[in-house]
């Protein structure tokens, strides 16, 4: 259970508040640009200290824990792979940060690459892969890191609709199905409607509590209406 307990985030004059808990499953984070979606994810990942309140995982206060020591892994809009490392090494970083991979590790990397559809491409460098393949390689690393919370900060925004749909399916099948808590920032409400179990609307200085996707879109709140422009 991921909990934002009376959380207040501050960046200059900007303030964002959140006070809710989230169960495993896929949650979409939507809202207007500059509303604070990325700020919320930064705080959960450990890049931003809360002004007050805290983030909890299964009742454990995460305040002060370095990003790498949290039960959290994250994909960004770009630069998710190190260009000087091979695909297998990039994925392997999720397993062994020192990159000293044993035979057993290498086997597990190969299995992960196979699951994201990159079987046999482990020796390539990222620049020899297509955009979709690069996203798959990053997902393989998330898979290997095996953290209960996964944050996707517009990770697939640069992909076309068809590829993005494929990625979301993959996220669904390998991460969500395994019982992880996945938070996904997206600009496209359709993405949220298609795959998300829950939706968090971030607007007017609040990260509103997660709501069931079907229920939310069936009866949009005034804030959501304003955001959707309907």
């Amino acid at each position, binding site marked *: 259970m991921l909990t934002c307990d009376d959380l207040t985030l501050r960046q200059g004059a900007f303030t964002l508040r959140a006070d809710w808990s989230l169960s495993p499953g896929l949650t979409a984070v939507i809202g207007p640009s500059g509303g604070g979606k990325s700020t919320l994810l*930064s705080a959960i990942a450990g890049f*931003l200290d809360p002004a007050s309140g805290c983030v909890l995982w299964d009742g454990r206060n995460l305040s002060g824990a370095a990003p790498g020591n949290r039960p959290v892994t994250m994909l960004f809009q770009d630069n998710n792979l190190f260009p000087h490392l091979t695909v297998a090494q990039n994925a392997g*970083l999720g397993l062994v940060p020192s990159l000293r991979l044993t035979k057993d590790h290498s086997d597990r990397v190969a299995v992960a690459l196979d699951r994201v559809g990159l079987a046999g491409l482990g020796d390539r460098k990222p*620049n020899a892969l297509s955009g979709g393949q690069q996203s798959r390689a990053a997902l393989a690393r998330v898979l290997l890191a095996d953290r209960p919370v996964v944050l996707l900060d517009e990770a697939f925004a640069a992909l076309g609709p068809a590829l993005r749909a494929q990625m979301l399916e993959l996220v669904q099948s390998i991460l969500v199905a395994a019982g992880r808590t996945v938070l996904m920032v997206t600009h496209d409400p359709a993405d949220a409607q298609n795959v998300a179990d829950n939706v968090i609307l971030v607007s007017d200085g609040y990260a509103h509590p997660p709501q069931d996707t079907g229920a939310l879109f069936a009866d949009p709140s005034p804030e959501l209406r304003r955001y959707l422009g309907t």
Partner: protein
Amino acid sequence: MAQRAVAIKAAGPAWVAAALVLALTVGPLVAVAFRAQVGSGLAAGDWAAIRFTIWQAVVSALASVALAIPVARALARRRFRGRAALVMLLGAPFLLPVIVAVLGLLAVFGRGGILNAMLGTIGIDPISIYGAAGVILAHVFFNLPLAVRLILQGWLDIPAERFRLAAQLNAPVWRVLEWPMLVRVLPGTLLVIFLICLTSFAVALTLGGGPRATTVELAIYQAIRFDFDLGRAALLAASQFVLCAVAAVVAWRITPVDGLGGGLDRVVARWDQSPLDWLWLGAVTLFLVTPLAMIVLRGVPGFLDMPASVWTAAGRSIAVAVGSTVISVSLALTVALRGGAIAQVIGVTPLASSALVMGTGLFIIVYPVVSPTVVALPVTMVVNAMLALPFALRVLIPAVQDVRQNYARLAATLNLTGWRGLRIVMLPRLRRPLGFAAGLSAALSMGDLGVIALFATDAQETLPLAMYRLMGAYRMETAASAALLLVALSLLAFWICDKGGRVDADL
């Protein structure tokens, strides 16, 4: 976005590195001041020297930068065969020992040089380059290439999309993009060149035409060598640091110091090209390459007849260059990873150091402990590393910032911190700038006469010293060959390191 977690910091080691640099630059000055017996103030002539030094450094910096702007602009928007070679060659004059460069310049601009020979055939009286004009000319020859590289980097840092945007809007590229970039880049460039010219000694004196061209460094030389007035030498050296501090503060007030990056291969396709570009490129190539060609021509005849001692000296120079490159690049990396104010101070302090005071001070420090002869090469290694440090830093600081910006958060989520982050993220990503910085350090160290003269006997002779001693023994032809070897080794060292940084480097 204010981020808490910045991966891969090195605060502790950076302070150690900074302390080391200050100990080696300011420390010798203090040692000299302490050793001074008769304390005397600055003489009347010293104030004239300080005035002339400031004047020539300001004019040299302005002239170098003014000429560098159109050249950098031409290089930024033209793609042609040999462009990479030209950019590389731009590094050459900067790496030359002073006497070699001066002789190369005189072969072109001197009384018996090519230029006057050509003027003579069309019946024009010979021109003389001696005097203020000669000093500025030589300083421009040394520093124009450096200015071009620094400013070119500014141009390459403007994203291509902005040029396209400006073109679509029909906006004046100069006013909306290039001028703002120059305002950011020029103060730092002017500062570096001003500081280099501040400690000029042999150039100013040889081409200056007389005692009007007395620089502070000459006054220091006189104070130590002829008067043995260490107090005055220390005062004069301190005045150089004061000038450096004032110049640095002025430059930082105007803008943060900006760097020159390792990558020089991104040419933006532009449609506002002017045919004048070719004129500028042609002129600068001619200006820089002709004296270099004269050095080569002069050195070739005796090249194979050089005595074994010259080759031995060359071997020593290579060893010194390797050592000082390792020191300089490690220090630069440590300081660059820390960044901030120390990096800024360390980036300029060595430039303002008087080589003679540094050498004398180190001698005073070392002498009671160990024979100076025994430590001649290690001391040279360390001093050369100090002198190369500002240039290595200018390459590494922006590169480190770049890596941080792109990969710090990813590295943090993957627990790639500390030494592991350095090994897996920083070092591989910095490979090219590290190669470039190493090449610069190696080449600078190879050619620097610096402090070795005070410490070395024949058994520690480096190549520049051997060359200078050959000249002192009337062996001008052999000396010319030694100079050629020196130039070749400097460029080779630069090329190997620079290339090494590029091999197999992705993106």
